[in-house]
């Protein structure tokens, strides 16, 4: 949609939930699991706006985070980058959070007869792992390419290996093949796959650029700065290939890579 008349997918709610557990994987990556007795109907690809109930005036805005799981124990995987995620990483069980969701669209259905190839960069693994786990009961086992700077940047790679055929790359060669995740991709891009990707903008732009000439459908989950998460602030535009803007929170976060103007490799203006 090019002018911002955005209509939501499904009713969304803001709830206050206590942190049930925090699983910290080194200083940078943490899975936060919340207690939501009534459950959250969150599907793979969707996200939630997360804010500590006791944060006061700063950090001010809630932080968009992809669901790693839904239901009564919804969880997120966070990477520490700034004030908000630092605070989340130190939260102790029992601490109350505001969770606003589910927001955004879901990954589209995998087309009949196609095998999904998941391309994950770092913390971008969260919505892809959730997707893979939701496909497992249907007997679908995706191929997953997972890259990071070093082995420390591959949170949940074991969990991913359980539900996917996993190939790992690291820039420093500390695990898997040395190099970038995109170098594994060309060999896989035949007519019977579909690509689902989430990670740094530059990685996703490279993935999109590989898929386009081969006419492989590529869905990218976009991370742009967001103030509201539900279409009112208009702070999350993504340049549309045909001109104008898409809004990551309402038209996405899962968007067909072909409809995006990836510009100089930064759909979201260089956020990631």
């Amino acid at each position: 949609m090019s002018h911002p008349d955005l209509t939501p997918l499904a009713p969304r709610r803001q709830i206050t939930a206590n942190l049930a557990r925090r699983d910290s994987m080194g200083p940078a990556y943490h899975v936060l699991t919340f207690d939501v007795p009534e459950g959250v109907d969150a599907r793979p690809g969707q996200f939630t706006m997360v804010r500590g109930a006791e944060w006061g005036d700063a950090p001010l805005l809630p932080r968009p985070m992809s669901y790693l799981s839904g239901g009564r124990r919804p969880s997120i995987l966070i990477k520490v980058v700034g004030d908000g995620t630092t605070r989340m990483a130190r939260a102790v069980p029992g601490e109350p959070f505001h969770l606003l969701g589910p927001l955004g669209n879901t990954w589209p259905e995998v087309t009949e007869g196609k095998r999904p190839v998941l391309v994950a960069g770092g913390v971008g693994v969260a919505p892809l792992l959730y997707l893979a786990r939701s496909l497992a009961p249907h007997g679908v086992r995706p191929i997953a390419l997972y890259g990071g700077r070093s082995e420390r940047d591959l949170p949940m790679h074991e969990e991913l290996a359980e539900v996917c055929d996993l190939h790992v790359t690291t820039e420093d060669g500390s695990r898997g093949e040395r190099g970038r995740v995109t170098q594994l991709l060309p060999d896989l891009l035949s007519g019977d796959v579909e690509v689902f990707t989430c990670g740094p903008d530059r990685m996703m732009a490279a993935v999109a650029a590989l898929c386009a000439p081969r006419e492989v459908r590529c869905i990218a989950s976009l991370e742009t700065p967001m103030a509201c998460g539900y279409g009112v602030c208009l702070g999350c535009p993504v340049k549309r290939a045909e001109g104008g803007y898409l809004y990551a929170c309402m038209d996405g976060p899962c968007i067909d890579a072909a409809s995006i103007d990836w510009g100089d490799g930064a759909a979201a203006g260089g956020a990631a």
Partner: protein
Amino acid sequence: MNQEVTLGGLTLKNPVLTASGTFGYGLEYDSFFDVAELGGICTKGLSLAPRHGNPPERICETPAGMLNAIGLANVGVEYFCEHKLPTLRERGVTVVANIFASSVEDFVKITERLERSPGVAAIELNVSCPNVSQGGIEFGRDPALCAQVTAACKAVTQLPIWVKMSPEAGDIVAVAKACEEAGADAVTAINTIRGMSIDPSTGRVRLANRTGGLSGPALRPIALRIVWDLVGALRIPVIGIGGVFSAEDALQFLLAGASAVQVGTASFSDPTAASKVRQGIAAYCAAHQLTVSELIGRGRPDSRR
């Protein structure tokens, strides 16, 4: 206790509105609370033609605040009147149409369009948007230009006209007085103040528009001071905006003499913020056995006390 407030000819059921640009067109909040419970909502700024807005990044967070350079992306007044207003009217929402143009003529055209559409309670002139290259803040700094826009719009509508003040005017009181003389029914204060942010790790300016308007609690002390000064200088009502996140914040503005408040950025931190502010004011009134009208201006030394 009675929560009604009267702004010139218009009576609102309570003094809490939502601020333009922070509440969409009001329909996005359905699943959170009944928007009709509020004193009113101000729409996203409407222009004559739809606008795409600025390229990304449009927003970034700052200490206890945020910068935005949306660039007035909006559906346009026509689409609004056709597709949004009827639903809002049906639901009993009090709608203040915030409008923006880069010429007096276009301000008038938009006003005329709204005048024809039942369901608009008042028009708020955004003469102070810092995020567009044409019009925007230039209007808001100049008393004569502001008065001209006000008078021109007044001439084509029966609806109350509110003028939204730029905090960047050197002499805000002079601008507001000019609007009052030109027939404004109320002034709203304040719009955002231009700020900017640089990411030292990349050395790059964060917003594509370079500057963006600062909003949120960071701004509140400045907004409150301006509202206090305007209340002291004007006869028409003043509506307070700027960092209202809680009932306590809203009460500061009411005690300073604002006749109503608008809740802006707070809706991003908590979509039910405006509803909570409304409830909190009602609770304060009950505890102090005061109506909202009795509360207004009670913090001023010239008031009874």
